[in-house]
């Protein structure tokens, strides 16, 4: 027997869990302390926001909310590596990426607070909104990438899917299309080990999720998803090659969902405390803070001051959300079609009349 093909999956890490550099070839952006500090500050902002959003849900001021606790490095790296006119297709907890791209925290709250206006992003006009059906966003991003390729625009589409979502046909279809058509598409699997209660081990027998890209003909890489430097380096590489016509890439960001799946879930029912405790040792904030502190560009004093600032900004956003009036009843009808068909005109009038009778 001869060998038809051989493959390897590389793993990328710069900062280990203790905040120590494990490679000497730091990428350009990471040699700029200022830039790293800015990224760390964004991660901290995301965590402050996330904590507040969970608290809002617990006090009945927000609907079901999907926390991003533990995903801050992966998400901020994705958002910060993209250009403004690139297109992002999230699943439903990528706030770190979205804030970098200009989505307002109040918009996140509005969406989870039951108001479609949360999807009318004030920032990235072409970004896809949150996508609840699992993995469908991958194909939408591939479609966006195909549009860029046909129009010869130097733009890149990026989607995020979970470890569970990487079992779906849509995920495979998207990377397969990217391979077949050399699309400017970057698919990121944020592997947080849990799809609600189902662990990574029973999603697939594959050793890595990154290797799923091999069969699709895209470049593959596994990354420490808790290491901002590695994640950002991987994203920079993937986006650059996509933008220059070298095709798609699949990145598996290995991280851990430190929160419940959503506020409607209780993860204590299905996963051991010891596992969660161990995951906290590897979480993304601490190692970067340790590293930045060792570089003398960050300190406890900075941390406290910035956290206080974040609290203030988040409070402003929360207040804006809480003060947003519910849409009038006709909003149910007004965006279903570009122009309201006569059938719906009658139903709209009915709903309005009912509303007026109720006063």
């Amino acid at each position, binding site marked *: 027997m001869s060998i038809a093909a051989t493959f390897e999956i590389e793993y990328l890490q710069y900062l280990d869990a203790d905040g120590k550099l494990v490679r000497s070839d730091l990428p350009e952006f990471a040699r700029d302390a200022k830039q790293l500090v800015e990224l760390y500050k964004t991660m901290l902002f995301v965590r402050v926001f996330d904590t507040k959003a969970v608290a809002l849900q617990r006090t009945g001021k927000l609907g079901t909310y999907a926390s991003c606790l533990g995903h801050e490095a992966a998400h901020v790296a994705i958002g910060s590596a993209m250009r403004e006119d690139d297109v992002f297709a999230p699943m439903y907890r990528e706030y770190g990426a979205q804030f970098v791209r200009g989505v307002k925290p109040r918009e996140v709250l509005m969406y989870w607070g039951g108001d479609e206006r949360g*999807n009318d992003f004030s920032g990235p006009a072409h970004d896809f909104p949150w996508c609840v059906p699992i993995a469908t966003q991958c194909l*939408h991003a591939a479609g966006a990438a195909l549009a860029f390729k046909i129009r010869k625009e130097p733009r890149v589409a990026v989607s995020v899917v979970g470890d569970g979502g990487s079992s779906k046909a849509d995920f495979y*279809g998207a990377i397969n*299309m990217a391979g077949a058509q050399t699309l400017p598409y970057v698919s990121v699997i944020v592997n947080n080990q849990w799809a609600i209660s189902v662990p990574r081990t029973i999603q697939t027998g594959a050793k890595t999720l990154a290797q799923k890209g091999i069969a699709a003909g895209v470049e593959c890489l596994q990354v420490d998803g808790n290491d901002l430097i590695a994640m950002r380096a991987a994203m920079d590489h993937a986006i650059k090659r996509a933008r220059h016509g070298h095709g798609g890439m699949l990145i598996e960001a290995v991280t851990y969902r430190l929160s419940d799946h959503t506020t409607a879930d209780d993860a204590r029912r299905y996963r051991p405390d010891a596992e969660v405790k161990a995951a906290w040792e590897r979480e993304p904030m601490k190692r970067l803070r340790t590293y930045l502190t060792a570089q003398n560009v960050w300190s406890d004093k900075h941390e406290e001051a910035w956290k206080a600032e974040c609290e203030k900004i988040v409070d402003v956003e929360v207040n804006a959300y809480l003060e947003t009036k519910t849409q009038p009843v006709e909003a149910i009808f007004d965006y279903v079609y570009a122009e309201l068909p006569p059938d719906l005109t009658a139903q709209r009038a009915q709903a309005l009349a009912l509303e007026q009778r109720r006063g």
Partner: protein
Amino acid sequence: MAQITLIEAITQALAHEMANDASVVVLGEDVGVNGGVFRATAGLSEKFGTQRVLDTPLDETTIAGVAVGMAVQGMRPVAEAQFDGFVYPMVDHIVCHAARFRTRTRGRLSCPLVLRVPWGGGIRAPEHHSEANEAIFTNVPGLRVVMPSSPSRAYGMLLAAIRDPDPVIFFEPKRIYRQYKEEVPDDGEALPLDVCFVLRDGTDVTLVTWGAQVKETLEAADALAKEGVSAEVIDVATLKPLDFDTIHESVKKTGRCVIVHEAPRTAGFGAEVAARLAEHAMYDLVAPVERVTGYDTHIPLFRLEMKYLPSVERIVAAAKRTLAAS
């Protein structure tokens, strides 16, 4: 001017709009060099290149999902589901996404795609190639569901569908793809969507139908005329949103209505037409509404399929029952 068939009218409309609008792209299985299994995209690949006439991997989910993504990003994709029975893997993207982007984002994004679906039975095809599954889509808000029944309507309605700012499911009655030819000038004139077409005026009974059944229904009207019965024939053409006014005006005149469709009866789109007649035309009716439909069974394999499809005989009999009732 050349006379063309319904399928050739589809090709003519695609070619016209691709020349007219650079954002129009065709994608699907075998739509490229092969020109489509029904020849709907014949010659387009040579004319517009393999990027705008794109042979996709053989995965309906991919075709639908990619078309959604392209449409949201400003393209006008015309995706082909090779056969009606292969549309089901696409439903997730059509229902959960294409139909919802506008409302979900409060109008920030929209999804102006067209999904072309060769539709219905009667061509002696294998299993899953003969489905009349339009009612799956007529219950979905945000979609347009259309079905032309002549070469000129196929041309004009496909142009309208591609230009429409919302997603359109474009069912093509494949049994009449090549039934007859018509002069269809390639003038780029779209026909209006959201309206029914009155194909034949009559005073005694209204026959309401769409798609391939227009053929049998017109033949039934001829047969009825020979017996002195004047039947009005309406091609619904756009099922959603429904132009009920045209149907209602006709029933005000005739007092009788027979609804003819190929799909199974229960919760078929005829049920919606009948329900609207019950709501709005009760006092115009002089006889119970009749439905002539496929049975509530699967369409059989082809040896029996013509016994499943509504026949001229069944339509005539139903019309006569409405006449006997009053």
